[in-house]
């Protein structure tokens, strides 16, 4: 990030260079990315599914839907409304008080945090996929293609997802980019592509303008895979050409691709069946006695040491180890190795049947992550109920992010069986039409609840609030059905959930100072509040002032697009909130440099400050602040960099 005017000028020039480069290609060749004539190029047709989005549900600005259709922003670079933008970026949400804790035993190559699935008008054998990144490139970590050749009957497990490319997240230079990595050759035509993203290293939101699928109607010859034009500004873009996939997928870059494609094929098919078959194998050996007379080196080790060693292995490795010998199997079956179970990395393979096979291992399970499951294998309600009944009566954390199989019946089973839940994550569960089971079944120990983008209704949420006095973290961002009742909801929270530590009210447009009043007068433990795009809040009603005065433990306060935030509010924050770590005042017109400097000076724990689109704050101000306060990450987004 630029800390001086010279660095900023460099940064600007680098971007404008890239833009010019693509514009020149466009003029010369008539297209930003020329391709061989025999190939068909399709732009994205329709976004089928996604994990999160920045924009409102019914809007066309900054929404996932923008990935489809023409790429109209590219090669311009900046924060444009016509791009596809996700809800979060960077490490900021993970280090906030409401952040999710990592699951033990998660394979290190799984780094996906967000996903988006897009369909195309025709089925093609993919030769090349181009993603047009128009802001903060470098988030894509995996590209998959869906094989529906076996029919669309998910029951028979005939939908499979094949990884076309995989990479590790790493920092990337800021410039417009057509991301087109070398793809694995596949033997089926597809019209559904899935992108998985990790934005940990990004400086700001990544924004995607469009995606193109380039391929052939009939299986192409292998020449196409090697001789693809490299379109980046630098001759050999280190971000792309040297990217190759992890050992599991067995990819090799460039020249070797053709020769080893046969091997790759078998390795990949092997891998996909691996997990379920490994689980099956390890289960089929029934309870075996460990012969105490046998003395191998392993049996000499104390059990606790073995347990300690095994605790470093991920799920797949444990399954493989269990197949080696009966002694190891016994150790690998120790339920205390599976107190955390994260099945999200294996979403392409896990079905409810595979979960049944894991029951013997999951008897002590405390934290279960089933996010993203359901697309790689069918999830039967009956199996889930069996699993929950056998293993999850004492379950503490259950994560079901973006699980399409979760409907009202599944929710009902969860609520009735897993009644000791402390943490329930239903982020993006848009298939739950009816939450009324929560009015009858309560989760009295509930401390954390995430309902982002769900269709929860007012009465059901009221029931949850009233029956969960220990509630500490609540996320009701983008819950459209709650919007008109939001002030009443805050009144209830104030009455029943006085221990509230974090609250996410993203895009609750009807939120007024009245509602906020109930909150800060009752929930003094509040550490995190997100009232982004709650445009009814007006500073002259002193709502921000009073918030700061009453919630002195605030560590994260996001006032994104709260356009009336003034200096007096910032000074109140500086005075009353010494623990403030993350502050976002995007888009306010009223704030002056002095007030911001005051906050930077006084809030010694500040690590994040977003002053994007604040009138009166220029990039050069931000540069000098970055130099003077190096421990604070100061964000200043822009639309057109040549104008700032």
């Amino acid at each position: 990030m630029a800390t001086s005017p010279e660095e900023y000028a460099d940064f600007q020039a680098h971007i404008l260079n890239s833009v010019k480069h693509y514009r020149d290609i466009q003029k010369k060749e008539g297209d930003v990315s020329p391709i061989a004539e025999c190939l068909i190029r399709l732009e994205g047709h329709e976004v089928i599914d996604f994990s999160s989005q920045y924009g409102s549900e019914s809007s066309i600005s900054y929404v996932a839907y923008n990935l489809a259709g023409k790429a109209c922003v590219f090669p311009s670079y900046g924060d444009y409304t016509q791009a596809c933008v996700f809800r979060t970026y960077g490490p900021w949400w993970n280090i906030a008080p409401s952040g999710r804790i990592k699951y033990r035993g998660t394979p290190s190559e799984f780094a996906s945090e967000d996903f988006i699935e897009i369909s195309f008008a025709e089925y093609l054998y993919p030769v090349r996929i181009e993603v047009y990144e128009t802001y903060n490139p470098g988030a894509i970590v995996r590209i998959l293609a869906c094989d529906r050749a076996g029919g669309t009957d998910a029951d028979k497990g005939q939908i499979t997802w094949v990884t076309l490319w995989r990479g590790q997240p790493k920092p990337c230079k800021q410039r417009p980019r057509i991301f087109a990595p070398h793809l694995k050759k596949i033997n089926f035509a597809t019209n559904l592509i899935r992108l998985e993203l990790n934005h940990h290293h990004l400086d700001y939101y990544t924004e995607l303008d469009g995606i193109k699928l380039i391929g052939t109607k009939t299986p192409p010859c292998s020449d196409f895979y090697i001789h693809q034009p490299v379109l980046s500004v630098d001759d050999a873009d280190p971000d792309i050409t040297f990217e190759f996939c992890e050992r599991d997928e067995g990819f090799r870059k460039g020249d070797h691709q053709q020769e080893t494609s046969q091997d790759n094929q078998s390795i990949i098919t092997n891998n996909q069946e691996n997990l379920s078959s490994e689980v099956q194998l390890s289960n089929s050996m029934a309870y075996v006695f460990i012969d105490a007379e046998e003395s191998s080196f392993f049996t000499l080790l104390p059990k606790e040491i073995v347990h300690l060693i095994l605790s470093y292995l991920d799920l797949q490795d444990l399954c493989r180890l269990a197949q080696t010998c009966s002694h190891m199997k016994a150790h690998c079956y120790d339920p205390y190795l599976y107190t955390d179970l994260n099945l999200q990395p294996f979403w392409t393979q896990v079905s409810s049947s595979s979960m049944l096979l894991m029951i013997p291992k999951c008897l002590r399970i405390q934290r279960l992550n089933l996010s993203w499951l359901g697309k790689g294998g069918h999830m039967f309600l009956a199996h889930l109920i069996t699993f929950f009944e056998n293993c999850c009566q004492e379950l503490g954390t259950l994560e079901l992010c973006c699980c399409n199989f979760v409907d009202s019946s599944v929710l009902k089973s969860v609520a009735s069986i897993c009644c000791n839940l402390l943490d329930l994550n239903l982020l993006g569960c848009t298939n739950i039409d009816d939450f009324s089971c929560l009015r009858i079944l309560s989760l009295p120990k509930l401390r954390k609840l995430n309902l982002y983008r769900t269709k929860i209704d007012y009465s059901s949420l009221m029931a949850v609030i009233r029956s969960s006095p220990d509630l500490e973290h609540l996320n009701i961002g983008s819950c459209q059905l709650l919007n008109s009742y939001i002030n009443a909801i805050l009144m209830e929270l104030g009455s029943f959930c006085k221990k509230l530590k974090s609250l996410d009210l993203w895009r609750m447009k009807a939120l007024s100072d009245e509602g906020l009043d109930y909150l800060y007068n009752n929930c003094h433990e509040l550490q995190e509040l997100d009232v982004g795009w709650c445009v009814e809040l007006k500073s002259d009603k002193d709502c921000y002032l009073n918030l700061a005065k009453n919630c002195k433990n605030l560590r994260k306060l996001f006032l994104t697009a709260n356009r009336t935030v003034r200096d007096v509010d910032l000074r109140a924050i500086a005075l009353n909130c010494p623990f403030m770590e993350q502050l976002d005042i995007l888009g306010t017109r009223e704030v002056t440099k002095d007030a911001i400097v005051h906050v930077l000076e006084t809030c010694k724990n500040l690590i994040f400050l977003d002053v994007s689109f604040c009138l009166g704050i220029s990039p050069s101000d931000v540069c000098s602040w970055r130099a003077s306060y190096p421990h604070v990450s100061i964000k200043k987004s822009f639309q057109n960099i040549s104008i700032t």
Partner: protein
Amino acid sequence: MQSVAQYGRIVARALAAGIHNEFQLKSPFEKPKEPLHLVTGASGFSKSKSLTKSSQLSKWTFGDDAYFISRNKVADVIGVADGVGGWRNYGIDPSSFPRTLMLVCERMVREGHFVPQSPANIIAAGYSEMMEQKVLTLGSSTACVVSLHREEQTIYSANLGDSGFLVIRNGEIVHRSTEQQHYFNTPYQLAVAPPSRDGQWLSDSPEMAESSSFKVEDGDVLMLATDGLFDNLSEDMIVRSLRPLHTHKEEERIQSTAHSMAEHAYKLSLDPDYMSPFALSACDIGIDLRGELLKNLFLFSGGKPDDITCIIARVTYQSEIFL
């Protein structure tokens, strides 16, 4: 009171027409109702000549006026927005609001986010989309959007403010929009005011837009313009200029007509002796043109200097456009 015989004749005629229609539809030589298209031309003049905006920014704008022309699978849509100049006194560029509004509306039409029978929805949705942008655009403008549903052969319109449109058929105005004003020279307007000073500004809701629909035929000429045109050219002048387009349907001709009309309006707007429609209506409502009320703002007689935007669209059969 009509006689039985007359009734009988009416019934017989109706029956005959009905049967005739039946036969018409079933006849193999019947030509199906062909969809109609708009062939458009747009032109205009900015009030102030001293603009140094880059070409990218001034696309689809003339001074503080903005417009758009867009098509999608079902309809052809055109729109104008006239920015209220008074914002300049508060340091806000009056052209950014109408320009952003028109760009958003154009995008919504192009991507199919609208109901062709309800251009009022385009205006309302475009207006609320402007609030969803990180960069808040301040200002206000009128809005007038006309959408031709090709299959239905009907135009649907929505108008908020004093921009407007006319439909001319065979040398006569057969349909027009109605002007909406709060008081003289203060039209209804969509506005986004500085958020901390809400309530002081005139801001009309998109629901105030007046909607209408009208069945059109091949040869109809539609003209959508801001008040800069209507205040300087009388309806007679407009009708006369548009008459040749009934027979001449080439796009170049339509474009040149739009240009000459805008130029004519521009020249008259600067003519101090010409009794423009604006001056006439000022007289009508009894404002003494030499009086106190107007001395800061207007010329005492003559034309009304203003940004002028004019879109002319000829309704034409699809098959005849590409000949």
